[in-house]
């Protein structure tokens, strides 16, 4: 199902894009709804799409023997899920599962790359959006490394 354009227009993540650019992305996107527990992708799988979570929550995980699946980070409403489609070998570094009922805009990243190649202005703006999201994620991860909530005793 093609994403209604109003949905993408309302996404804060894409406000730096023009209406026309958002419409172009809507053309390679669809809306999906996932029940809690739905596996979105597995580590090592082909990374050919990304998600913008609209409602609900997705957890990125990895397997750590003998602990099993370990949750690394949550992706909530308005946030972007999936980087591995950006650079070769286009394989997921981690896995992801919807932990609550989740609605997301799913973008065909192969088609998105074509759009960006054909329209460098769009490609540049997309790069800035992705870098901004990556920076936020990196900074939050660094802060977590500080273990600020530990008991100083």
């Amino acid at each position, binding site marked *: 199902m093609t994403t209604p354009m109003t949905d993408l227009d309302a996404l804060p993540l894409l406000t730096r894009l023009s209406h026309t650019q958002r419409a172009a992305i809507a053309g390679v996107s669809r809306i999906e709804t996932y029940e809690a527990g739905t596996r979105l992708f597995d580590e090592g799988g082909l990374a050919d799409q990304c998600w913008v979570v609209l409602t609900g929550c997705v957890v990125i995980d990895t397997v750590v023997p003998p602990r099993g699946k370990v949750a690394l980070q*949550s992706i909530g409403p308005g946030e972007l899920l999936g980087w591995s489609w950006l650079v070769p070998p286009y394989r997921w570094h981690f896995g992801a599962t919807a932990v609550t009922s989740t609605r997301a805009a799913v973008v065909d990243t192969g088609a998105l790359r074509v759009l960006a190649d054909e329209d460098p202005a769009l490609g540049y703006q997309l790069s800035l959006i992705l870098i901004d999201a990556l920076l936020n994620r990196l900074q939050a991860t660094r802060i977590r490394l500080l273990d600020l909530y530990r008991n100083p005793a």
Partner: protein
Amino acid sequence: MTTWTPTPYQVVTRTVETHDSVTLVLRPVAESLPAFSPGQFAMLYAHGIGEVPISISGIPGDGTLVHTIRAVGAVSRALHDAGPGTVIGVRGPFGTAWQLDGAEDLLVVAGGIGLAPLRPVLGHPAKRTVLVAGARTRQDLLYQDELAGLSDVDVVLTVDHGDHDWHGRVGFVTEPLASIPLDPDRTTALLCGPEPMMRFCARTLLGRGVRAERIQVSLERNMQCGIGLCGHCQLGPLLLCRDGPVTGYPTAEPLLLAKEL
């Protein structure tokens, strides 16, 4: 009774919150102290051991005091271990309170034990209240049953390390702050937790258009006298037992970059 003399209170109930934190309800043995406001603190004295500043974590309105205590040193450990019937010395109320006048939308952001001083605010009648609370793990989250029962507050809980039973968020509190719906012109933000946490959260909120004047933080140093005389809690131009702990972000911002305690 003076601000120097502890007033005897007796532990009525002791509720275990986490592996290192408990909530004590204290009832006056005879004379009671003046009423506390959310954000203020008391000096709690464990007999023969010492005195520490502990924020009020509940205001039942029946003359009892509610404090949530994390065992981090000898005094807080003694208070943490105090069972019903134990008599504790209390001085207070001390310090500044959360400024809630005119607040339309309340955004309450807490990290770790920082949720305790904010707990009394969750009952404040705002048009909309959002709580974003972080902890190391699910087991370290305070007041879990109580938070689950809050019907008038949007609660977002996030932990640094998730486990199989955790269905909330995994990540630092800045992450939900960056994306939760908020109206910057109506939002009053109250932050309490480790100072770097408050600094990073304040930056996130400023980036979302919340004015610095509408952000309050709770600062803590080595409070001792409680009335701004001894100087142990000095932070720049502030004596935090008197001028804090609740401080406006425009004042606090440069102080949060102080390299030494």
